[in-house]
């Protein structure tokens, strides 16, 4: 079976006046058809850049090596027209801020119809009515009226529904949702997560959910990749990751998350120190300075991600169940 997406030894660096900054440091993983994978990490861990590379959206000063294959076809270093055959139709992306990812001066209907006119050669009239039906499928009330509205006339939650509708128009094999609920209120967030769950069942596409919030990913993802300082440090089935985190960073991150259930705490647990500064060249484990389990070996030898495809950890001394 050809994986929907396979990322192999992907490295992304940016040239900056202070030198070369490594954002993604040799990341490999793959996503099976219809699988939902969560990608979790703190800001600056490189989680978004991986998919910006896949979509050909990296900044001009980026250098990329390695490979990103979509259904077997290389996406890196291909020309625009080749990329455009899949980008926006078979491989789509939903961003954090639905206001800036919709064009402000075109109606919702025009923006949605344009996707099908461009990718499927559909006549505008048919494309518009199809767009209306798609809005209905993502539970946008009064879809006919919405088609004639501009993005600023919609609420944040409604805009995100429009983005989700747009991402589904050409029946994609993979949708990448980058912090799709971070800009939304908690009640709307719950609705959008529910919607993503429903469309995943209905359309059967693979889904990548990028988030800094483990709890958001928990309800949706089959498998979770945890990133730290440009590397994947743990890869595990969702239930296992929460029950038996193996990388000390995952374990610390879980401890740090305040909860609305369980005992009230006098002080919140914290993670001392800072992630390495971008650009620091690391021979050692990047988490070693903050790690409660770090030993001498961790400070001289960088651990590699090892294990089976559903249970991997990059740690010399992983936690055991």
């Amino acid at each position, binding site marked *: 079976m050809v994986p929907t997406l396979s990322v192999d030894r992907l490295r992304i660096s940016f040239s900056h006046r202070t030198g070369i900054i490594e954002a993604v440091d040799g990341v490999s993983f793959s996503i099976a058809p219809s699988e939902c994978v969560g990608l979790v990490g*703190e*800001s600056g861990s490189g989680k978004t850049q991986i998919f910006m590379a896949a979509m050909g959206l990296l900044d001009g000063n980026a250098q990329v090596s390695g490979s990103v294959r979509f259904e077997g076809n290389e996406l890196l270093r291909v020309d625009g027209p080749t990329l455009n055959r899949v980008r926006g139709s078979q491989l789509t992306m939903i961003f954090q801020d639905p206001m800036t990812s919709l064009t402000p001066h075109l109606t919702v209907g025009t923006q949605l119809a344009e996707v099908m006119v461009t990718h499927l050669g559909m006549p505008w009239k048919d494309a518009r009515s199809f767009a209306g039906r798609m809005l209905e499928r993502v539970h946008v009330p009064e879809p006919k009226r919405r088609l004639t509205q501009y993005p600023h006339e919609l*609420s*944040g*939650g*409604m805009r995100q529904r429009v983005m989700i509708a747009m991402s589904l128009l050409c029946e994609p094999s993979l949708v990448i949702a980058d912090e799709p609920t971070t800009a939304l*209120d*908690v*009640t*709307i*967030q*719950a*609705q959008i*997560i529910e919607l993503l769950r429903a469309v995943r069942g209905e359309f059967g596409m693979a889904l990548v959910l990028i988030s*800094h*919030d*483990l*709890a*958001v990913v*928990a*309800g949706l993802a089959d498998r979770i990749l945890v990133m730290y300082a440009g590397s994947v440090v743990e890869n595990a089935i*969702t*239930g296992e990751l*929460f*029950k038996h985190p193996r990388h000390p960073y995952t374990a*610390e*991150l*879980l401890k*740090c*998350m*305040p*909860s*609305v*259930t*369980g005992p*009230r*705490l*006098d*002080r*919140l*647990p*914290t*993670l001392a120190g*800072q992630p390495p500064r971008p650009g620091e060249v690391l021979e050692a484990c990047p988490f070693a300075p903050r790690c409660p389990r770090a030993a001498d070996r961790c400070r001289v030898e960088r651990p590699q991600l090892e294990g089976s495809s559903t249970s991997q950890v990059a740690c010399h001394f992983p936690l055991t169940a």
Partner: protein
Amino acid sequence: MNNIVLRVRDLRVDFGAHAVIRGVSFDLCSGETLSLVGESGSGKSTLARAILRLLQPAQGSAEFLGVDLLRCPPAVLRAQRRGLQIVFQDALASLDPRMTVGESIGEPLRIFEPGLNAGARQLKVRDMLERVGLSPEMTGRYPHEFSGGQCQRIGIARAMILSPKLLICDEIVSSLDVSVQGQIVNLLLDLQDAGMAVLFISHNLAVVRHLSHRVLVMYLGKLVEIAPCDALFESPVHPYTRALLAAVPRMPHAAAAAAPAAPGELAAPDLMASGCAFRDRCPYALPVCESSDPPLLEVAPGHWAACHRSQETLNPLSFVA
């Protein structure tokens, strides 16, 4: 705790023809942390700005240590502002990029204690940096050299340097990663012990739970529930509070929420003309909710809710939707 620092009575704010704060009253005592929660658009930040008279309320009073901030002459207001400080969400944007952090933190001293010489001021600044967990050696650095969490501590240090009686925190942990968020929350917990009153505005209910003595829930500019923290999280009365709590994403091992989530979005302003503004999203709405505005009633000692069915919803077992 009967030494009231802030007494807000029937505060109303209008933006044009729209009422955005509709008669909010509460007290805040020294050493107490009151959290303000609600969705965006519920009026949380507007309420804070109205109390500080950063915008002019239409009606009501906000007495700070007995002085009505909304009616006192400008000179009196200026003098009072020394005792009330605010920290904003975007920490980097609220620091002057051309001032060193030492100058920024020392500026309130320069204004309110002009008699203090530069050396003494410097000493106070260094002491304050240390109190917020930063190195005193950092006074000569500029804001861009700090991370988001560090900038937030600098903002808190600047607010704290005059030892205010009341600190207003407007979404100060929202943009921070979980590992850093805990450090800021713990810092506020330390300040509580020092007797300061804190008005903590946040949409992050998990953080609110670990930090607050009492919680005030707002919906469309109205206070819908106010209760001691444990009571609010353990036995929320207002259906909106229940929906908010139910919408918080949970870890897989945490107990599921008992209440239904709220469908729909924040209501259109025309719903506010009469009756309960939450009625169109409320699973428990009755005809009476449309005709009359529910009064704020005390359902348990110190626990107030504005719901026509507050006596029923208190006990979820006997309650049938």
